[in-house]
């Protein structure tokens, strides 16, 4: 595969320099060196159009949404609801009412876990109830945000928390899937692409198995959304969530997509303004989805800017971005192992793998690797990447991670390799 794909229009040949021009921060120098930003899996940088979208709303069309009958309120509401249409189309959602805006994907996953536990005292929500004997399944490679909410749900309900283990290559133990997901399983929640390993999971198989046993399936697409087309109808899961700031969007906004019939039967999570149908001191009825799950004033400007980010991604083309990232990945997987003492943690080939690479460097702590790279202008992440069980599994305290995005260049990967060589020498 090459970086040149069958795109029509301006980006027919992927023009990374042109893409880079959209990002003001890429002009920055760090310690006198040009910024080499290889931490996009942590959070992506923002194109100018996204920055402008928020600013424009505040400067010209701002008011609270949903509630106001005046012109500014209507303009803001129309922009907000148009953003819901944009996101629904991006996900190929059957209905715009299946798109719930949250503050990040962490909230989206907690929303599900709390709604399910609220089912125990909520009339008509029997199918979401969990109790002793029921099982909740995740994988050993989850981000803490798709792990702790389910641990807490298990604690609250008495259900059993289980996980599909990892093999030595950084993939799920295939043979374990059908055993761990079984007739007792009520919820299966798993990551599409691992932020710590880069692994892309067998989504179709996991969803099919969950359906087979009658479990609710949830896909954490935080790391998939910026890199792979997300078609919720094709994925076939019950819920799919992602987070705005990793998709070149603003902070403060995430998305939960869910099948309408499920959302409509689910108890509310946060209580407050705009999620109600009618409120009485002695009792309250709740609005239909998506509003039932959007209590209080939403992240209005951020939702609008997220739609701009989605449009930006669609403008460049997700296929084109993906092809570009595959080229970067293949190059990185070739050159990184030439650094003395470097060991990749996770799949070492480009098959079923995203452009996020964790590694260790013999004799140098990841903190030192990252800090010394920073002194060369190169931004990578060091730590357990909020997926500590992965580190435990592979017997390392932490790793260094380089992750690529639409604006990453082959030259930046070479700069990374050169930097790593220097760091290695320094500690030898």
């Amino acid at each position: 595969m090459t970086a040149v794909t069958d795109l029509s229009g301006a980006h027919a040949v992927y023009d990374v320099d042109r893409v880079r021009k959209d990002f003001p921060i890429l002009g920055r120098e760090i310690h006198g060196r040009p910024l080499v930003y290889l931490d996009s899996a942590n959070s992506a940088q923002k194109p100018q159009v996204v920055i402008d979208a928020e600013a424009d709303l505040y400067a010209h069309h701002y008011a609270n949404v949903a509630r106001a009958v005046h012109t500014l309120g209507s303009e803001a509401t129309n922009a907000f609801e148009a953003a819901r249409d944009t996101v629904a189309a991006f996900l190929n959602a059957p209905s715009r009412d299946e798109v719930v805006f949250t503050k990040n994907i962490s909230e989206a996953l907690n929303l599900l876990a709390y709604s399910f536990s609220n089912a125990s005292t909520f009339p008509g929500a029997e199918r979401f109830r969990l109790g002793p004997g029921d099982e909740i399944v995740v994988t050993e490679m989850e981000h803490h945000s798709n792990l702790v909410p389910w641990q807490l749900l298990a604690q609250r309900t008495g259900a059993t928390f289980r996980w599909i283990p990892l093999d030595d290559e950084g993939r799920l133990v295939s043979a374990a899937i059908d055993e761990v997901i079984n007739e007792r399983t009520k919820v299966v929640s798993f990551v599409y692409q691992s932020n710590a390993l880069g692994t892309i999971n067998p989504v179709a198989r996991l969803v099919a198995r969950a359906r087979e046993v009658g479990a609710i399936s949830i896909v954490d697409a935080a790391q998939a959304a910026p890199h792979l087309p997300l078609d919720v109808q094709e994925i076939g899961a019950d819920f799919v969530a992602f987070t705005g700031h990793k998709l070149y969007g603003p902070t403060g906004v995430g998305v939960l997509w869910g099948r309408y019939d499920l959302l409509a039967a689910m108890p509310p999570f946060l209580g407050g303004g705009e999620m109600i149908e009618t409120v009485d001191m002695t009792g309250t009825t709740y609005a239909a989805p998506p509003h039932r799950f959007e209590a209080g004033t939403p992240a209005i400007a951020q939702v609008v800017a997220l739609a701009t980010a989605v449009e930006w991604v669609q403008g460049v083309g997700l296929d084109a971005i993906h092809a570009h990232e595959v080229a970067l990945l293949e190059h990185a997987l070739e050159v990184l192992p030439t650094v003395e003492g470097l060991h990749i943690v996770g799949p070492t080939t480009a098959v079923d793998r995203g452009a996020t690479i964790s590694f260790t460097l013999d004799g140098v702590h990841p903190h030192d690797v990252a800090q010394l790279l920073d002194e060369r202008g190169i931004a990578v992440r060091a730590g357990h990447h909020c997926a500590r069980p992965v580190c435990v599994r592979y017997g390392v305290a932490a790793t260094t991670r380089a992750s690529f995005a639409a604006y990453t260049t082959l030259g930046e990967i070479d700069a990374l390799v050169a930097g790593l060589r220097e760091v290695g020498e320094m500690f030898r």
Partner: protein
Amino acid sequence: MSMPSPQLESMYQEVILDHYKHPHHKGLQDDFDAEVHHVNPTCGDEVTLRVRVRDGAVAEVSYDGQGCSISQASTSVMTELVTGRQVTDALGLQEEFLALMQGRGQVEPDEESLEDAVVFAGVAKYPARVKCALLGWMAWKDATARAVAGEGNPV
């Protein structure tokens, strides 16, 4: 009273105020197949609506309600439009009006079919008011579906 601004085509056109002040078919009729009660919880607007269906046509619509001029006038205009029509045609009109209202001001209204109801086109730009304009229409649709299904018939 003059319009507040020359640039503005006011949402409050003569037709709306007329229907608001002199509503058509207001006052519940005793002979009906189905009755419904709809409320807009965000502002308390409400309508009780009765429908009689004969030979596949909307024989009679009557209602009682309270609320803003948009919700009340829209209900009044609706009763004029659907009465005497085949149920299927009337449901088609309801869909057309719904599409107009949900179009965020991007949908061109068809005066040919919607007649007086086109005066509500301006409402579509104000999401908080769309439910007002739809209140009576949704109640009518609901009541008619029940009447056709033979439910809700008075004994």
